[in-house]
Structure formats: structure tokens, C-alpha cells
């Protein structure tokens, strides 16, 4: 079996000035996840490592760099699934967590549930020792500018983020 790892950094319309940042970010994440596969680690370890790197990269809309909600806050979602057993874990509307994908994995491994949401997810994070981070550390200038631009009357946030058909 030849191991393989494939990552994405989001669909839509990437501004020209961020294109190389995005490409460099996905290349770095793919290399890191693949290195784990080559050392014999599991597919689950590899995808969580790759997504953690992408969450930590402010060029992408997850973790640090997340888009903002209508109130200017960060609410994040994440999911993991293991093809061996169909085990799965997820978090939704979670705040002040640097790496929601790691919290989703803990939901899979340490609870009987598939998804924890909002304040319940935060309580679970505290219970399993996942530290909270200041929300400001997840917000980039780029995300704040896009949020402000799309508060204007007549703006179309979905089209702004997704662009048009390719």
C-alpha cells in the first residue's frame, strides 16, 4: 500500500496577493502529514497533523484567520472520522480554541457522542485540558477588513467568500 495524503485550503476566489501564501500553506501541510504516514503513523494522525498546521496558518479560514460572524466574533466547526471503525468526533460553534480539529478528535476518543457544540464544547475542552486562547489571537487584520466590508448595505458575503463558478 502506497500511503497518500491530500489537503485543501478552501474553495472560492483566492486574491492574487494571497495565492502563493495559500499554495505554500497546503504544500507544507501535505509534507508534514505525509511524513507521519511514512514513519508508520495512522491516517488519523496524519490528517489531524495536516489540518492543525492549516488552522495555525493565518492564510486560511480555520483556527487563526477564521472569518468573523455578524458580530465580529469567531465561531469554529471541525470534524474527524476514522475509516476503520466509522468513529467520528466533531465540535461546532466553538470559541477560543486554537485547534478545533484536535478537540474534535478528543470528542471521538473520550466521549460517547459525535458532536459537542458551543459552551458545552468549551466545558469539555476545559475538562480534558485543552487551553482556551484569547479570541483576538484568532482574528487577523484580513478577516476584520472582510467583515467590515461585508457589513455594508447590499454586500453579498457568500459571493464574496465563494466567488463564482469555475
Amino acid at each position: 500500500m502506497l500511503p497518500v495524503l491530500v489537503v485543501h485550503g478552501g474553495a472560492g476566489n483566492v486574491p492574487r496577493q494571497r495565492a502563493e501564501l495559500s499554495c505554500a500553506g497546503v504544500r507544507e501541510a501535505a509534507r508534514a502529514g505525509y511524513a507521519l504516514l511514512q514513519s508508520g503513523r495512522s491516517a488519523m494522525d496524519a490528517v489531524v497533523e495536516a489540518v492543525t498546521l492549516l488552522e495555525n496558518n493565518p492564510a486560511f479560514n480555520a483556527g487563526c484567520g477564521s472569518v468573523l460572524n455578524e458580530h465580529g466574533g469567531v465561531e469554529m466547526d471541525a470534524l474527524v472520522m476514522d475509516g476503520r471503525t466509522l468513529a467520528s468526533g466533531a465540535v461546532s460553534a466553538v470559541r477560543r480554541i486554537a485547534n478545533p480539529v484536535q478537540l474534535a478528535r478528543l470528542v471521538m476518543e473520550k466521549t460517547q457522542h459525535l458532536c459537542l457544540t458551543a459552551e458545552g464544547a468549551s466545558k469539555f475542552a476545559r475538562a480534558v485540558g485543552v487551553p482556551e486562547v484569547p479570541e483576538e489571537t484568532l482574528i487577523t487584520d484580513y478577516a476584520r477588513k472582510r467583515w467590515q466590508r461585508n457589513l455594508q448595505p447590499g454586500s453579498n458575503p457568500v459571493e464574496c467568500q465563494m466567488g463564482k463558478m469555475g
Partner: protein
Amino acid sequence: TVGAVAVDSEGNVACATSTGGMLNKMEGRVGDTPCVGCGGYADNLLGAVSPTGHGEAIMKVTLSRLILFYMEQGKTAADASDQALAYMWERVQGLAGVVVVDPRGGWAARFNSLQMAWAAAQNGQLHYGLGKGEDFTLPL
């Protein structure tokens, strides 16, 4: 949104997806990402999928599971992805992208949006792209 799929040396598959959601979303809005079958799916018998795109559209067609359903019918990862994205566009005018692996190590990165940053590592080579039809390669 960011995501990853993988097959390890024992033939096990997995997926992971993470997102900040949609720009200027309502407080409390949850999209496809945390929903099994929508924001990802992994089954050693079929493969693994991680999507990105318009979450409400992805949920309406359960995009990840739909791709694996097409693969179960014998389509390749790329053909199954294209068929599912076309179905989503026809039914709900949704834009999205996906990364997909099958248990034998076949893979695909497909999208119907303008762009999707993606990269794939296998057998000493790193493939990557951003725009339609791009597939650049580097040695790992």
C-alpha cells in the same frame, strides 16, 4: 475551510475538516463541517472525503457521502467527485471543492468554484494547484 484525507500503510483511511464558517454568518450558524456525511466521511470500504464550499448546499446533497456512493458504484475518485459537484450545482446551485482518496491509494482534488488550494503527497512526489486544471509537481 481546510481539510485533509489520507490512506496509511495499512490501508486505513481518515478525514478531517475545520472551518471558521461563512463570512459574516449569523451567530450560531453551523454549516456542513461538523456533520457526518456532509463535512466529511471516511470508510475503509469506500474511501474518504473532505469538502469545502457553501455549507448549506453541501448539506442539502450530503456531498461527502454522495461522492462515496458514486465510488461504491464503481466510479473513480475524480469521476465521482465531478458527478457529485455537478449534481449539487444542478440541484441547489452550490459551489464547493473536495479532496478524496480511495482505499487503494487513488486520489482526487476537484472543485466547481473558481479556485481551491490543494496539495497531494504520494510516492515521492508532491502535487499541488490552485486554479482549474493546475497540477504542478515537486519532489518530496
